[in-house]
């Protein structure tokens, strides 16, 4: 009866209750969507870091990372690879040779890390081969009489081996993507003209289009106008094992795009045998082992197992390689909980206000209930339930809207193309696919119930302090 009465009481003043419910709905909806957005962003960053950049565990010779000394190497003759590879929980292991050097073209130079890889073996660990920009080449697939290097999009821009051009093909592509005809007319003025770098291209396009046109279509135009200079070459310069300077010309095998500017600017991949030949490194030797494991929860256990089995090596897992990533994944749920908690705390004030009005309006009724024998626990429960119902109705509706919004936006993602440069500088993709877990909805439900209960305490205590004899006489 207490439940039924509390439920009916919620609808006694429909408009007031609906206002509270609407505010909870909006708060929960906004909270869920924001969390799903952050969650998607972090999940994408995590997947990209593991799948394209660092994998789960990296092993180097003792103090290699500390001293960056290319002489500190491991050898195949020590049987490290099969021994570690046979440990349970490990799904793949590859060796890499690492050399620090300079990449240069006729107009620009940039410091890089040259990574010697066995392309086919790498595919077992990384998905970098899936990130090659169409039209820029491939992942060491084609035969070539030249030495090949795979570089990142940002290094390609840095070395000026890309160009920007608006030609008829680009205009058609833009038209297909619903760019207004008036913008295409403005762009046709520079049709056929080649721009050697992004800066010059941006400056010309900015002079042609209005600010709002640029905001709306600037990134799209830049994306379509961008093209790679085929058969480009670059020189990689580094020191060999005898500390002699070696320079060699490489053809660009392909350009990868992993939405992480820092990685793309620095990491250049070449075939391991080529790098060993040029740097005078014995092909049985290598600088780094990269390991992929089956279960993320086994990260620390496997790291410790390798450390104890091979104490002469430096073993670092992804949490140690990218502590920011570890912190995000370890504390993300607490942060989401805190975030929702703040939203609900703000909503709680609205609920408290409403419940105080309820107690004030029903003074006589509450006095009557106490007079006829409804004890304090029941009076408290009735008010608390009313508050919980108000919160829960808003919460459930908010959760449904939140879930639907995540469902809809996750289908095609949300593209912040205009902020791509900034976001990719920190390793985050600008195209975000919100995602949320079922357990988060359970957490929110618990938080909403706690909010409802907490919001009812003060009004309920006020109700309990009523003197029934006086309350009954209240007009």
């Amino acid at each position, binding site marked *: 009866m207490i439940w039924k009465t509390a439920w009916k009481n919620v609808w*006694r003043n429909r408009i007031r209750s609906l206002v509270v419910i609407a505010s909870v709905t909006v708060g929960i909806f906004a909270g869920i969507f924001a969390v799903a957005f952050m969650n998607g962003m972090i999940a994408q960053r995590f997947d990209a870091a593991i799948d394209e950049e660092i994998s789960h565990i990296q092993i180097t010779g003792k103090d290699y990372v500390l001293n960056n000394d290319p002489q500190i190497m491991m050898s195949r003759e020590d049987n490290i690879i099969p021994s570690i590879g046979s440990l349970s929980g490990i799904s793949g292991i590859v060796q890499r040779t690492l050399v620090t050097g300079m990449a240069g073209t006729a107009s620009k130079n940039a410091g890089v890390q040259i990574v010697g890889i066995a392309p086919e073996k790498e595919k077992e660990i990384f998905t970098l081969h899936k990130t090659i920009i169409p039209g820029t080449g491939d992942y060491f697939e084609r035969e070539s009489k030249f030495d090949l290097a795979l570089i990142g999009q940002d290094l390609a821009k840095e070395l000026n081996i890309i160009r920007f051009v608006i030609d008829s093909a680009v205009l058609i592509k833009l038209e297909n993507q619903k760019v207004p005809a008036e913008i295409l007319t403005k762009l046709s003025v520079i049709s056929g003209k080649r721009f050697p770098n992004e800066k010059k291209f941006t400056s010309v396009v900015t002079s042609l289009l209005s600010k709002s046109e640029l905001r709306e279509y600037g990134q799209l135009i830049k994306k379509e106008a961008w093209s790679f200079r085929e058969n480009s070459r670059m020189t990689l310069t580094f020191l060999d094992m005898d500390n002699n300077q070696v320079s060699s010309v490489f053809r660009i095998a392909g350009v990868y795009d992993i939405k992480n500017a820092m990685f793309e600017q620095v990491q250049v991949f070449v075939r391991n045998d080529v790098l060993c030949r040029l740097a005078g490194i014995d092909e049985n030797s290598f600088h780094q082992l990269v390991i992929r494991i089956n279960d993320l929860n086994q990260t620390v256990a496997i790291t410790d197992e390798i450390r104890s089995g091979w104490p002469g090596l430096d073993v670092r897992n992804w949490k140690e390689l990218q502590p920011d990533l570890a912190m995000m994944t370890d504390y993300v749920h607490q942060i989401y909980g805190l975030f929702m908690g703040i939203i609900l705390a703000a909503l709680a004030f609205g609920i408290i206000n409403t419940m105080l009005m309820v107690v004030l309006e029903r003074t006589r009724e509450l006095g009557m209930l106490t007079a006829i*024998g409804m004890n304090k626990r029941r009076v408290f429960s009735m008010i608390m339930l009313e508050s919980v119902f108000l919160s829960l109705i808003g919460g459930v509706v908010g959760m449904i809207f939140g879930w639907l919004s995540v469902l809809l936006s996750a289908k095609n993602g949300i593209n912040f193309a205009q902020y791509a440069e900034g976001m990719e500088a920190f390793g985050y993709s600008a195209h975000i696919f919100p995602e949320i877990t079922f357990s988060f909805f359970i957490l929110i439900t618990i938080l909403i119930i706690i909010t409802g209960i907490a919001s009812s305490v003060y009004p309920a205590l006020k109700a309990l302090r009523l003197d029934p004899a006086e309350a009954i006489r209240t007009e």
Partner: protein
Amino acid sequence: MKVLELKNVNKIYDGSEVHVHAVNNVTLEFQEAEFAAIVGPSGSGKTTLLNLIGGLDMPTSGKIIIDGSDLSGLKSSQLIDFRMRNIGFVFQAYNLIPVLTAKENVEFIMNLQKWSRKERDERTFELLKAVGLGDRMNSRPSKLSGGQQQRVAVARALASRPKFVLADEPTANLDSKSATTLLEIMEKLNHEEKITFIFSTHDARVVKMAHRVITLEDGSVVSDDIRE
């Protein structure tokens, strides 16, 4: 059988500016199935006396003994429970729960006492039928007239078979016809259920129908007439 006894009951409101002796040395006894009216001018202490009898207020001195239990010896929570089990209330302003139907209002106290559904249904139907509202069980108070609402309130007061019912000016808000109907119903239930009714009233019709009339003046009992 004695159901209620007041021994030298006093109630003094002693504020910083006012000193009111609202109930002055009242000693009374009520027997089972009495139909008693407490009358007196405004400010004579009728409502205060009813509040003391109902355990809604505590006397400054004296004893109120209901069915052998002294109310002053009970803690607040025990007092609420005691009221629930032993006392029915009818208020001047009906005080029904507006969101509940007539049936739900009547069975509310039985729910608090954890009666079974079958028992509740039987008792609710029996009482609402007795007050002439057998066909309005599912009506909310807003759909009932004042007289009908007060009849529901009487049914609610009797629902858990209390030792006695306290009614504070039950006819004050009713028209003449409704008041007469209500009084006839209460008298009938008093007779059938053997439950003591104690009213505070200004209404001459109530006084006329009462079997006992207690007159208060300035908090003191000035007459106590028992009619045959």
